[in-house]
């Protein structure tokens, strides 16, 4: 059997690893540039600030931007407290056992369910049974269920990763369990928890199937959380699917990508301002 000399193996392994990393970057840049080059020419102040007219053939995408932000806000605001609460229960309030395994298994299973199934459930439960209709609330709650597992698992990882002595220090300084969790555990885990929230925001912003079924696809500017709404991703999908305007679809996609970039960069800056000075 032919054997490579060790030096050659090193070179090959290095090339393979570097190649994979490079592929990821090239793919990302290719997709980003493709969408941005196609879409940015459509972007204008008017496009961003006017409501769509004539089913999206003319006008802008303002109402869909507002809807996207509202649906995302509702789902993150609902899922974060429950997710972090579950993570705290798993890490601080119980010992490993049947209960924790059932909770983790449920969370992992929830994470694996396709979004269209969430959409169907949200449609039957929130829209019909609870009579919320197609609305930002129905959409937001459906997405909250969808992102819950991500938030639980990332928050759990973040809490497990903090220095185990932080808890003992807090207790040894006369802290109660609650004070220890609020004063020492959560602040130290904040960065990891926020990472999960940002990932979830990304999922909310990009979701289509579940949102069409629960928030509807109304192009009007939502008046409250009870109004039906069309998010940017849904708008994009409908523009392409119904052949309304490829140009405007790319414009929406570009705006969507820019919105996600802004959220990521903004959230990171926020975390750094809050956390970094202490690390």
């Amino acid at each position, binding site marked *: 059997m032919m054997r490579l000399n060790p030096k050659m193996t090193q070179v090959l392994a290095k090339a393979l690893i570097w190649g994979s990393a490079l592929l990821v970057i090239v793919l990302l840049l290719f997709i980003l540039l493709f969408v941005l080059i196609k879409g940015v020419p459509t972007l204008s102040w008017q496009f961003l600030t006017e409501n769509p007219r004539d089913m999206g053939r003319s006008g802008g995408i303002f109402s869909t931007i507002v809807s996207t932000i509202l649906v995302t806000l509702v789902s993150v605001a609902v899922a974060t407290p429950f997710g972090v609460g579950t993570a705290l229960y798993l890490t601080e309030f119980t*010992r490993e056992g049947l209960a924790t395994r059932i909770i983790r298994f449920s969370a992992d299973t929830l994470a694996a369910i396709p979004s269209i199934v969430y959409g169907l459930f949200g449609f039957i439960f929130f829209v019909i049974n609870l009579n919320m209709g197609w609305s930002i609330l129905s959409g937001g709650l459906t997405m909250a269920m969808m992102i819950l597992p991500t938030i639980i698992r990332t928050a759990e990882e973040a809490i497990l990763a903090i*220095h185990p*002595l*932080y808890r*003992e*220090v*807090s*207790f*040894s*300084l*006369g*802290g*109660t369990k609650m*004070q220890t969790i609020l*004063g*020492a555990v959560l*602040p*130290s885990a904040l960065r990891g928890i926020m990472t999960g929230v940002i990932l979830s925001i990304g999922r909310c912003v990009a979701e289509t199937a579940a949102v069409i079924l629960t928030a509807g696809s109304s192009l009007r500017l939502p008046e409250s959380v009870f109004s039906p709404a069309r998010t940017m991703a849904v708008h994009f999908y409908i523009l392409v699917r119904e052949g309304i305007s490829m140009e405007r679809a790319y414009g929406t996609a570009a705006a969507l990508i820019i919105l996600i970039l802004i959220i990521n960069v903004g959230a990171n800056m926020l975390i750094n301002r809050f*956390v970094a*000075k*202490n*690390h």
Partner: protein
Amino acid sequence: MTVQPKIAIRDFSFYYGKHQAIQSINVDIHANEIFSLFGPANSGTTTLLRALNRLSDLVPGARTEGQILIDGQDIHAEDVIVTDLRRRVGMVFEEPVPLPMSIFDNIAYGPRMRGIRNKAVLAERVEESLKLAVLWDEVKDRLHTSALRLSGGQQQRLCIARILSLGPEIMLLDRPCAALDPISTAKIEDSLVLLKEKVTIVLIPHNTQQAVRVADRAGFMLMGEMVEQGPAERLFTVPEDNRTSDYITGRFG
């Protein structure tokens, strides 16, 4: 007439589940002395230290027998509020563990949990505690920067200051200098000698030399038993028990 000891340990045993880590020991620790608990690994020193402010309660399956009296009061009595006990009996760990927040917030952590919110009071506490731990001059210009940026020795003095901010009566130190260089060690030992005017100190030294340098009295533990205790200079020069002299002269451990 005899003076009541600050800490009186009476027929005290400690169990982790079925494993008995401390075998019915008796120790008196007097007010304003440095008492050095020493012994090889797994001798029960750390377990005993952590029992003194009931941090050992946090270990699942832990159980105690006998009594630990502080100022004559049993710390396991039902009317003892454990958070109050831990404020009176502060603990410094082997590894310096500043919380990931500013120097000021670290020192103010204990008082804040006790409900002190007044900024002037907190600032005063912080300054006082840092001065007692001989750290003030080094950090007074950067109180609001991260405590994690301090050197190891400074971090350990920060941990001492953090306890002092609660005005404790007793300080427990578990090998506080194990991870530090000799200069930092000397600084901490100096501050301990100054501090014993205010507090009673129970110290597990990381080596016998440290016990010799700072301790007033000492107790040698082996396999959960208290082999011998007494004034430090006698214990380290003419120990009564062979096992103590074997350990001190380095024949085992």
